[in-house]
């Protein structure tokens, strides 16, 4: 078990190293690379000074090694546009993203599994058809457009909910205010991510419902509810955990576009601002951080398999 975890972590570190290398190369060997940052400085001396300030007078491999040496000590460099250390920006934005991600994840998991069970139990009858219509819509409607429509309906027309931000400006911390701000973005995210959970739950459940031990349980006269929630769902859990893990990584990366629609100041927003402001240290930092989260979530998911299904063991 410990050996397995250690092995996976080592692999994860290798993947992270490669992610940073790929991102760094993409950024640095591009025509509009970091050196274009200084093109607006007027005199040659000023340009020189700027280049030295960001360490851009060094060749790319040297710069990468310097960055790497800093990164292993938790120093990801300074943001060019904001002047703050990248790691501090990341932590600050991450907490904001986590609030939205947690809320959206809860909605996605609860409604996804519920609708999946509903579809499987009424296979090919009208509840199943309704579920499949809703999920197909969820997969096809662009989530950011749904966000805009939600703002039109609930904020502009009805005036029930705030249109943007994660808290009312100037107020202190107020839980109900925070939740009111999160309802629309979390709901929209859940609507667009839920179809994946529904599909996986439904098909896994259908497979297990057709198996012999379920027939035995029915023959023994066990009530339907016990069969579904205890015997069947537990056995259908592994693929469901796997899709929930995948969704977690999507949510943690800050659901880039939705944060932009709702002015939610999280990681996704940071990434877009960095991208349009050509803030290279931030872009690199965000990508590596999101990669790290993905690696960790994937490991946790694999370990959860063993919890859900005791037949799975890691040597």
């Amino acid at each position: 078990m410990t050996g397995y975890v250690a092995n996976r972590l080592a692999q994860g570190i290798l993947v992270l190293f490669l992610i940073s290398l790929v991102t760094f190369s993409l950024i640095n060997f591009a025509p509009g690379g970091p050196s274009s940052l200084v093109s607006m400085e007027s005199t040659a001396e000023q340009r020189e000074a700027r280049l030295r300030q960001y360490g851009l007078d060094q060749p790319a491999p040297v710069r990468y090694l310097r960055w790497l040496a800093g990164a292993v000590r938790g120093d990801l460099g300074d943001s060019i546009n904001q002047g703050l250390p990248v790691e501090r920006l990341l932590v600050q934005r991450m907490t904001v993203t986590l609030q939205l991600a947690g809320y959206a994840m809860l909605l996605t998991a609860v409604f996804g599994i519920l609708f999946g069970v509903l579809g499987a139990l009424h296979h090919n009858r009208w509840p199943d058809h309704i579920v499949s219509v809703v999920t197909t819509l969820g997969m096809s409607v662009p989530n950011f457009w749904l966000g805009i429509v939600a703002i039109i309906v609930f904020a502009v027309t009805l005036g029930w909910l705030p249109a943007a931000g994660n808290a009312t400006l100037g107020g202190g911390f107020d839980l109900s205010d925070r939740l009111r701000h999160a309802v629309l973005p979390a709901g929209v995210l859940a609507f667009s991510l839920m179809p994946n959970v529904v599909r996986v739950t439904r098909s896994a459940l259908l497979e297990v419902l057709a198996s012999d031990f379920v027939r035995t349980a029915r023959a023994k006269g066990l009530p339907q509810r016990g069969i579904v929630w205890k015997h069947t769902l537990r056995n259908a859990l592994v693929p469901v955990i796997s899709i929930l893990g995948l969704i977690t990584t999507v949510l943690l990366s800050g659901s880039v576009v939705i944060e932009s629609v709702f002015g939610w100041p999280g990681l996704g927003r940071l990434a877009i601002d960095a991208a349009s402001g050509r803030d290279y240290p931030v872009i690199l930092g965000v990508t590596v951080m999101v990669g790290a989260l993905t690696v960790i979530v994937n490991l946790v998911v694999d370990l959860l398999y063993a919890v859900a299904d005791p037949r799975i063991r890691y040597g």
Partner: protein
Amino acid sequence: MAERSRLLRKILRQPLGIAAVCGILLLVLLMIFGPGLYPHEPNRTAPLATLQAPSAEHWLGTDELGRDVFARILAGGRVSLAVGLIAMLVGLTIGSVAGAAAGYYGGWIENLVMRLVDVFMAIPAFFLILVIVTSFGNHPLMIILTVGFSFWSQMARPVYAEFKKFRNAEFVEASQALGGGNLRVMARHIFPQVMPQAVVLATLGVGWAILSEAGLSYLGLGIQPPLSSWGNMLQNAQAYLWLNPMLAVYPGIFIAVTVLLFNLLGNALRDVLDPRG
């Protein structure tokens, strides 16, 4: 012959899939011939006729610069559909070649390609697109390549699995024994086995690519004005939500319907071609 009629019967049992094909054809015809038949220019501004309601003259009204919204939707549709289709081909090609080589040859090629797949799977697709577009600029061609490139790893996985499975199959050995070269064996004998899965993935991939382009353009990082795309029309419209919310509704409906059609077609194809899926 019996084989063919069985396939035909299976297809006829997918009314939604057939409807999706008709819808996609209709949409493509509209995008090809619409701009020629509809009397308005997508980029002609009219300062005296801004934010008009739909009328017989302007079918979907005009935007904040007095440009005809329906004309812009037609022009933007050409861009969005082209990005969707070509990006999918790019992703499919890179993914298939990489996955096939890794599965068929094994050894260091397999190690290298599959590690790269791990790396690209760990970077969320949208982040990868952001990084590439900021570095290499947002020329429309660059956007197409980037969106396509962002899902090569998802395409490579299933292709790799199938090629690995069939690498030592009897029909492969037979072909090799008859003197078939590696490329011939891969293209003529193994690839047809992967075909059904690849077609399904590709169809769903078109929808995904259209959504990615729309998201990117909505953020202002994709297709740039004055060239219109459904995504950047939405970006424009968000500033006028209070004045004229319908501006934000029309392009979204076109995106949603187009992606819906490709998803329905993909699901129907899965039922027909890929009994395990």
